[in-house]
């Protein structure tokens, strides 16, 4: 349990689950949840490298902090977009938002 590869695999699994969700969910909120999962996978990766390989333990933690900040910003924007979309379409199904159809 105490090896880099284990953590990398966990992060990878988390990432792929998130991606699977991002690709197949139709609810916009579901997609946001999946994105959060992927971001967390990235955070785990940072921390793992920080723990096992990195030169300075503080750097990886700071990176993860920044990821959290970005995630918070992203969530705020995405949720307000969800609201706007819902007001416009009375639905948050991404398949209904097809104004950009060619």
């Amino acid at each position: 349990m105490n090896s880099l590869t284990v953590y990398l695999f966990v992060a990878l699994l988390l990432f792929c689950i998130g991606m699977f969700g991002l690709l197949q969910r139709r609810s916009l909120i579901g997609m946001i949840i999946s994105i959060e999962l992927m971001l967390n996978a990235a955070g785990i990766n940072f921390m793992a490298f920080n723990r096992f390989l990195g030169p300075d333990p503080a750097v990886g933690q700071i990176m993860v902090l920044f990821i959290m900040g970005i995630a918070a910003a992203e969530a705020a924007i995405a949720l307000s977009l969800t609201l706007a979309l819902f007001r416009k379409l009375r639905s948050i199904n991404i398949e209904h938002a097809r104004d950009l159809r060619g």
Partner: protein
Amino acid sequence: MQPVIAQYIRPEVVAYAVFFFVLLLTLGGALIAVIPKSIIHNVFGLATSLVGVAGLFIYLGSEFLAMMEILIYVGAICIAIVFAIMLSQPMHLQIPPRLRPKVFFSFVVSLVVFISFTVMVVRTPWEQAVRTSNDWGVKRLGTLLLTRYELLFELISLVLLMSIIGAVITAATASSEKAPGSRDGEEDGV
């Protein structure tokens, strides 16, 4: 019987058990966050998964980040998502059936990504960098954030500020687009 059980509850076994529990929280929560149709279940799954990630952070040596994970993700982002769900009322909307091909293709694509990353993880000869510091303390984090990473810190604050303003404007504009129309309608009615 007790000694028999006791002989299994050795510290390393407990440690393994706890670690697998954390892994289970993480991955199981992730699956719950993605697979069920009900959006509320998804949010709970997400929260579970994030708690698991916080546990992993503790294993990786940073209690501070684990605390932050719970505070920010579970405490803030999940609550925000719940708010969004309540405001956009997807609960009462009927949930359309899943399209099988879409699920299938998503799975295939994710699988391809998984395979390629696995190959990379396995093949790469990871090397330990020269340690320049071994201080995991929060104090050092704070010092670094206000000295070497000050610019990034300021930048991330700015991004957050802008995103909040943007979120407010997006939500408010969307509602005000709606509002004049409805008011017009009322006036017409009167």
